[in-house]
């Protein structure tokens, strides 16, 4: 069965610093991978997705992620975080093209 692992439950970075959130997946074939963000009181919002092609994908809000098949990873990056980036981030993979399998999430804290 497909699964997604986000090894960091909490991450704290200073405003303006770079960010990398880790994600590893388990899937036999080429996966479809996603990163979602969830802010308090807000619905899940899609940041970016990878289906095929270029392994570096650009998303909204200045985020990017890189698919590395050899490491079964899809890490999320941002060169300079803003206080408004504080939220919970979920890595996800599809199963059967209808349901999305989510990781447990990483909560991002921003220091002023």
């Amino acid at each position: 069965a497909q699964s997604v692992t986000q090894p960091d439950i909490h991450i704290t970075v200073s405003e303006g610093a770079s960010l990398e959130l880790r994600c590893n997946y388990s899937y036999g074939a080429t996966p479809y991978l996603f990163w979602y963000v969830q802010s308090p009181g807000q619905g899940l919002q899609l940041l970016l997705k990878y289906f095929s092609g270029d392994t570096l994908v650009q998303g909204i809000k200045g985020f990017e992620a890189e698919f590395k098949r050899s490491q079964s990873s899809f890490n999320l990056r941002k060169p300079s975080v803003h206080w408004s980036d504080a939220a919970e981030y979920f890595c996800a993979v599809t199963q059967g093209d209808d349901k999305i399998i989510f990781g447990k999430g990483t909560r991002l804290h921003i220091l002023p």
Partner: protein
Amino acid sequence: GAGVSQTPSNKVTEKGKYVELRCDPISGHTALYWYRQSLGQGPEFLIYFQGTGAADDSGLPNDRFFAVRPEGSVSTLKIQRTERGDSAVYLCASSLIGGRAVDTQYFGPGTRLTVL
């Protein structure tokens, strides 16, 4: 509408009671999904509708959970004989066509269910 809406935003009930949670998808979206998010966890898939029919209900935990979408738009998730373990945020999402990973799922803000 502008986005997926869910009502109520919060629901507190007593163990053993029946509850209904409503989801209003984005207008024109044929696919609708329900997920459940327990504290400290990511969302877990419950059921997927394509139009009026449930295309995949493999995530429903047991027969106390049931969902309908009679006119292919609004959906209601129904939970009978609620248990404390049902306490969670129930999320609804919709997508334009559905059944394809390329189709972005747009999520509502969720309904927080608390079973006392």
